[in-house]
């Protein structure tokens, strides 16, 4: 699943570490999410959406089964 996490994070000018601390996950999790290697749980997806004040669909792009 593709996402705009890296783009949005850079727009806000925050580091992976800072985002990880706010979301209570590790920095590696943020890295994996940005690379698209890991799909977050629905709870984490909503936490991320709430952090950026957006909808989940605006951050995570579902393009059907890969």
């Amino acid at each position, binding site marked *: 699943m593709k996402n705009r996490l890296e783009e949005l994070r850079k727009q806000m000018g925050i580091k992976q570490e800072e985002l990880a601390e706010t979301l*209570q*996950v*590790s920095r*590696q*999790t943020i890295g*994996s999410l940005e690379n698209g290697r*890991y799909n*977050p*749980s629905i*709870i*984490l997806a909503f936490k991320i959406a709430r952090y950026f004040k957006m909808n989940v669909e605006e951050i995570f792009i579902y393009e059907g089964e890969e």
Partner: protein
Amino acid sequence: MKIKNGLSLFNIIFLVVIVLIFISSVVGMFFVGGYTSKTIPLIIAAMAVSAVTNGIHHKFFIKEKDNDERNISIENKAKAKAFDVMQIIFGILIIIYVLLRANLLTIALAVVAYLIILAVYMTSFSKYHKEM
């Protein structure tokens, strides 16, 4: 999995027990027995004790579990893979015991251990099936 900064009473007791087991095994191996035919079984027994105590320590004494969902997911996947492999290995082990004509008690214990693990798997499966 993080290890707590402060030592709790249980952790101290646990460490004392480990140190005692270690000292007694060192004394037993080097000062009393020297190298005997019992050395290898003793090493295997020590490994078994460490496996059991390590398992108990992880299950009951480490309270502060990792709360990073990716790490939890990785750990669960690794455990699932290990369980799949363990089923095969246990099966092979029992077959080897049978082919070696090991005594019935040894085979029965291995089978019982295998059945206990399968029973835990089935009860957990049904528990989570009801919960989710």
